[in-house]
């Protein structure tokens, strides 16, 4: 049996190997994704982000347990940074997810950011297709929200949860990092700490002050993930958001937008790949840049010229 056939029969081993194929862009992965896509049912994607130390993994631990208890078929993807110097990564988020009952079939996969910007968001989106096709109905994506890369992933989710903790003035950082705009639900974790109430208040004030892009009122939920406190309220808010998206038609609209973006991306990747393999093959680009630096050319004319050449099929 091929991996795909085993996948269709529900083999977790096959699912895992297929995810690796997809992550690595190995031979045949596009065709595989095309087939997998036909089997998707629109898995619900919850993105969870926040600075290191905010207790994201513990939150995922509790949320997934609750969801599994409600008989959802849950998958989790945890993303951690890959070292830009060595290419290696320490993926330790699973360590915090050991309360999830093992008999509920919750699937956890750790991914390294693997360096290339844009590549990670794409890989995540493709892995989501596999998980969707396998039959999971809820996906939690956990990532550290410290860069454009992570923001792209998070942006591709349906409900975005941002987790902060009282200690380090995170509220202000959140405002700066663009998390304010994309967050659908705020969590103040470790809410037994000093400063928690103040932080809840600060975030609520900041939310009130901005121009509301929609009529969803972003809630701020205090939690204590380690002690399993108020997680049910967090889940409730996530479900409320989902209900809102569905009722307002925004879920469909967002997904339409995301799909459009995805198709554009696919085209761009194919085109870029093709140009790289033909017109720009070899050291052409290096030579062009050398000329520009000598003052014998400029980026705009060079770009246009190479593009014309490509159009003519060379």
């Amino acid at each position, binding site marked *: 049996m091929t991996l795909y056939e085993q996948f269709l029969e529900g083999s977790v081993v096959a699912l895992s190997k297929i995810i690796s194929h997809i992550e690595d862009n190995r031979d045949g992965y596009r065709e595989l994704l095309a087939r997998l896509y036909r089997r998707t049912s629109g898995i619900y994607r919850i993105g969870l982000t926040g600075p290191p130390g905010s207790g994201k993994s513990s939150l995922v631990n509790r949320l997934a347990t609750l969801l599994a208890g409600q008989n959802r078929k849950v998958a989790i993807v945890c993303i951690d940074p890959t070292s830009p110097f060595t290419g290696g*990564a320490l993926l330790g988020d699973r360590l915090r997810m050991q309360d999830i009952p093992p008999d509920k079939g919750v699937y956890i996969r750790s991914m390294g950011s693997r360096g290339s910007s844009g590549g990670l968001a794409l890989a995540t989106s493709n892995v989501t297709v596999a998980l969707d096709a396998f039959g999971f109905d809820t996906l939690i994506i956990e990532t550290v929200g410290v860069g454009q890369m992570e923001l792209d992933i998070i942006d591709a989710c349906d409900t975005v949860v941002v987790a902060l903790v009282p200690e380090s003035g995170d509220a202000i950082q959140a405002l700066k990092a663009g998390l304010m705009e994309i967050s659908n639900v705020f969590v103040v974790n470790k809410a037994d700490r000093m400063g928690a109430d103040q932080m809840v208040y600060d975030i609520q004030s900041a939310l009130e002050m901005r121009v509301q892009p929609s009529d969803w009122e972003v809630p701020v939920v205090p939690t204590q993930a380690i002690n399993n406190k108020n997680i049910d309220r967090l889940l409730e808010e996530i479900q409320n958001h989902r209900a809102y998206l569905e009722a307002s038609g925004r879920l469909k609209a967002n997904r339409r937008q995301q799909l459009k973006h995805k198709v554009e991306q696919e085209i761009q990747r194919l085109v870029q790949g093709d140009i790289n393999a033909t017109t720009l093959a070899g050291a052409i680009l290096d030579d062009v840049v050398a000329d520009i630096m000598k003052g014998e050319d400029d980026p705009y004319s060079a770009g246009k010229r190479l593009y014309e050449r490509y159009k003519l099929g060379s």
Partner: protein
Amino acid sequence: MSEKIRVLLAKPGLDGHDRGIKVIAAAFRDAGFEVIYTGLRQTPEQIVTAAIQEDVDAVGVSILSGAHMTLFPAILKLLRDQGGRDILLFGGGIIPDEDIVALEKMGVAKLFTPGAATTVIIEWLKQAAAARTKDDKLL
């Protein structure tokens, strides 16, 4: 994209001494591997479930408590039962020579004795992972 070597590192059983396994985790990361570290006091079931979900090339286990003749075979059996027969099981710790021989006969890919240099372990893993046949047909 080059295929990364993915390794699961875990401590099964009750022993809590994680100095060695953490040094190896850091060395592996510096060698470019993706290291999934699942922590202390893992049951064989937890280790194998994680190994399968993460599609790792290898599982590395450290046992200093003398429980290796119970734990290694348990992990081997679960790997085989759950379709992970091709995942390399390796490890180290306080394991007498004759037990090393017995365990390697049972199917443990390699056991390292105390003092083994991380460079040696990394080299071994690179070769062993490359030698794994990944001949599953995709479609």
